[in-house]
């Protein structure tokens, strides 16, 4: 299996995903829906994630993957119940095992769930409402717990999801889906819809057939949690992140020193400090024969915090680090590794499943007019944006909302395609002429609402580097924006609060990564009226806003109304297989042509730079990052 997707055309065609940094909302976690599962199982017969090596050299066990990151960027303090970042999931692939999981390889095969703790993919009842799983034998928790993992440890993880004080961030995948699951105050309590008839069997009773349910059992919040430790961390949220008990091949350094005899004796494990380091070492209780998904070549991981991104790449170049993790290499580094043939093997370009986009607020003039939104789609120079990010290595220009791997709609569908993707003034003007904000049919917005429109951006490169081009493009059709640059988290908070978001006409700061391979992860959270909540929405464009809701939220509802995509999305939800994919392709097209909430910019790649010490490169399509569980190094370093 070719682990280097950039050399595997079929993978590149199927997956044009992208890098995901620390987005609060868009964790780039990929899972395949059942539909794709059926198709793709065939091509994953020889799994394992070991791949062609960039340099000759035997793949041996030992050594440590030494890396650095500018910040962990965790949004749930590393507690698996609340951690909703792709980088967090990349570490969990070393620490935690779930009922189902992935092979840690690139491409479509890396999105197919495989049995991990479970003996098989589970049994579904004919009505699609009951899923039964059996656990493998001889799988123990790491030190200091050291006991066999039972089905009630998994059930306890689900119980934690519903305890509001623990702030589970993707509880919506389980609440209302599994019988009896709903958020409540207070410590975790029993869930009626999950049975554990014996210590090795777990049965889920669903309220409604959910075809992508197995994929949801691969997410880290469902990994077994030993109650004897976790009961000490019922609130505030995140405490368990300092004392995660391992079920995977690695554990946090110092886990064996932790004393679980009582809550007061539990101190944070020494290997994790959210401000400086994460050190993982081998879990002595992990047995290779029980784990088909992880090679666990390295003896450990040494991830340190280095806020100077350039320094990280300098250290990789000099060999004191083995490779990068999630940071986008600066353009100078990209040029160096892309043009020097002796360095090229150490540059790994892997498509992810994330769309970078410009979101237009349907409530805010002039973007309440579809012709204006279409004109913006025509005018934006996407090639220029791609350059700001560092050129084609960093991503593929996006022609529509969902990355091709989601619903299978590829690059051939591009309703606003322009020559060289540089934008088309005449088409933009033709569209603008039909707008009510251009009564004189000049091709420019002449209404006063087009002056001083707020453009929200992040205050960090490469976003700031792309800003000038977007501002200039918008000015060409008479939209004169005032750019506001905020720190990434503040920028998200501004638009995920409906009221403050109403002050922003157009925002280029967000990006969205699929939680798993099902196309609905690119539909419901982003465009359904259900996801319109006063604070914390991810429907930044306000698609499906109604007059009543607008009144309730205290925002102005445009006289022309706001389009909704609810009917289109809801029609797809019961569907499975190819029918589902085709249906969501229709949603994507409907969004692009009849709603037009976005200007999709590009589907980015994760570019990882390694040093020659990395003898086996592996990319985990599920997390969208280096597969730490499957890489091998030759550095003999100890964690």
């Amino acid at each position, binding site marked *: 299996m070719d682990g280097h997707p950039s050399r595997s055309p079929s993978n590149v065609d199927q997956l044009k995903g992208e890098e995901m940094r620390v987005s609060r909302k868009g964790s780039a976690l990929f899972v395949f829906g059942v539909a794709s599962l059926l198709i793709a199982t065939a091509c994953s017969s020889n799994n394992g994630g070991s791949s062609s090596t960039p340099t000759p050299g035997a793949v041996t066990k030992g050594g440590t993957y030494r890396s650095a990151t500018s910040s962990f960027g965790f949004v749930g303090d590393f507690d698996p119940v609340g951690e909703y970042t792709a980088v967090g999931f990349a570490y969990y692939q070393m620490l935690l095992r779930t009922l189902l999981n992935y092979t840690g390889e690139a491409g479509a095969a890396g999105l197919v769930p495989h049995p991990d703790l479970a003996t098989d993919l589970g049994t579904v009842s004919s009505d699609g409402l009951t899923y039964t799983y059996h656990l493998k034998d001889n799988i123990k928790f790491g030190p200091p717990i050291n006991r066999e993992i039972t089905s009630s440890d998994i059930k306890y993880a689900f119980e934690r999801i519903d305890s509001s004080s623990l702030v589970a961030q993707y509880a919506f995948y389980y609440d209302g889906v599994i019988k009896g699951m709903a958020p409540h105050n207070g410590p975790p309590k029993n869930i009626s819809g999950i049975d554990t008839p014996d210590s090795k069997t777990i049965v889920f009773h669903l309220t409604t057939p959910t075809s992508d349910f197995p994929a949801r059992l691969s997410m880290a919040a469902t990994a077994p949690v030993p109650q004897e430790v976790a009961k000490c961390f019922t609130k505030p949220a995140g405490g368990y992140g300092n004392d995660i008990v391992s079920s995977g091949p690695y554990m946090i350094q110092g886990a064996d020193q932790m004393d679980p005899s009582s809550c007061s004796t539990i101190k944070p494990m020494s290997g994790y400090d959210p401000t400086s380091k994460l050190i993982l070492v081998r879990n002595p209780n992990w047995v290779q024969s029980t784990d088909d998904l992880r090679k666990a070549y390295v003896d450990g991981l040494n991830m340190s915090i280095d806020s100077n991104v350039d320094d990280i790449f300098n250290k990789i170049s000099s060999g004191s680090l083995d490779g990068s993790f999630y940071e986008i290499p600066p353009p*100078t580094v990209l040029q160096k590794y892309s043009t020097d043939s002796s360095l090229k093997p150490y540059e790994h370009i892997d498509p992810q499943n994330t769309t970078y986009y410009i979101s237009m607020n349907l409530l805010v003039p002039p973007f309440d007019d579809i012709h204006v939104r279409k004109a913006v789609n025509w005018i934006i120079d996407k090639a220029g944006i791609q350059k*700001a990010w560092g050129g084609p290595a960093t991503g593929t220009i996006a022609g529509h909302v969902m990355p091709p791997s989601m619903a299978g709609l590829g690059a051939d569908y591009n309703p606003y395609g322009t020559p060289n993707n*540089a934008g088309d003034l005449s088409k933009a003007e033709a569209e603008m002429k039909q707008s009510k904000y251009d009564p004189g049919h000049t091709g420019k917005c002449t209404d006063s609402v087009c002056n001083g429109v707020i453009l929200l951006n992040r205050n960090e490169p490469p976003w700031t580097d792309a800003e*000038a081009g977007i*501002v*200039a493009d918008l000015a060409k059709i008479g939209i004169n924006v005032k750019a506001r640059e905020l720190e990434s988290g503040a920028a998200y908070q501004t638009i995920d609060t409906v009221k*403050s978001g109403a*002050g922003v006409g157009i925002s280029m700061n967000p990006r969205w990564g699929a939680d798993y391979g099902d196309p609905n992860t690119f539909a419901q959270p982003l465009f359904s009226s259900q996801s319109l909540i006063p604070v914390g929405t991810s429907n930044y464009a306000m698609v499906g806003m109604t007059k009543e809701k607008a009144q309730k939220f205290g925002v102005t509802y445009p006289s022309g109304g706001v389009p909704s995509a609810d009917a289109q999305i809801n029609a797809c939800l019961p569907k499975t297989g190819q029918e589902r994919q085709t249906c969501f392709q229709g949603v994507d097209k409907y969004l692009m042509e009849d709603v037009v909430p976005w200007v999709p910019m590009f589907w980015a790649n994760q570019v990882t730079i390694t040093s020659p010490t990395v003898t086996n490169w592996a990319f985990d399509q599920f997390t969208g990052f280096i597969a730490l569980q499957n890489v091998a190094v030759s550095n003999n370093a100890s964690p």
Partner: protein
Amino acid sequence: MRQDQSIRTDQLDVGAAAPAPDGQSAIGKTPWQLFWRRFKKDKFALAGGILIIVLIFIAIFAPLIAKFVGHGPNELFDNATNEFGLPVGPSSRFWFGADRSGRDVFVRTIYGARTSLAVAFLATGIATLIGVTLGLLAGYVAGSVDTVISRLIDVVLSLPLLLFALGISAACSVAKNGCLHGLVQPGLRLVVFIIALFTWPYLARIVRGQVLSLREREFIEASHSMGAGEWRIMFADILPNLAAPIIVYTTLIIPSNILFEAALSFLGVGIPQTTPSWGRMLSDASNSQMFTYAWWMMLFPGIFLLLTTLAFNLLGDGLRDALDPRSRR
């Protein structure tokens, strides 16, 4: 701060009273003639003044210069960056090279003078106005007014300046209409507001100190006894005597305000990316250590920033020496 004696224009007689060195009979000179005679001997200060005038002309005529070059400050040139988005260096087309977005660094540097000078003059002007007024009131009215103003000065001076600036910018740059009912608009106006907010206390303190000593002088008593009102004494008798320290101090504040603006822009606060600013350009150059490749992105705005602050400092020093000959370095 030095304990300067203020200059009372009608008493300033140092030059006039001294016998002329060449033996000619002494001619009565106005204080400004005396000032100019001293000032023009200071070649550094003169150079600084000339440089500032040149910079002001550059700022005023920036659009003309840009027209001559043929590049706008926010015009993007696709071929000014390579396929990796890295900019081209100085050439006959781009005299100072290009930046990451493919814009002309020369034109942006020229336009940057506008931002720097505008912010410096505006913010310093506002700070001077507030500082002098409050300083006068505190020093002259004294009593509880003095207490209130002096404590206010203490409070403002003890605020962590940069943190506070970042906080205000964050709070005021989100809402479309900014803060304080639109008074503090995001962008240039916000930066001016922040700088003025943190600069006026210095001036107010100095003015207050001067007024405290001036109000005990005989000519004020004389004014009083002739029945002059409080406002008249404050603004007609005392204020003119403060001209020298105000001019000197204001000139010295300007360069620090230019640097403050640059620092705020460097931190990505306030001034949007599309407004050319030296601080912002330096920040762009240091992002991703771009200067290791595109040294021109850092060098040229850096030189202009250096020259501008240097010029104002030289001028300020020269003014101080010329206006206040009794001061000792």
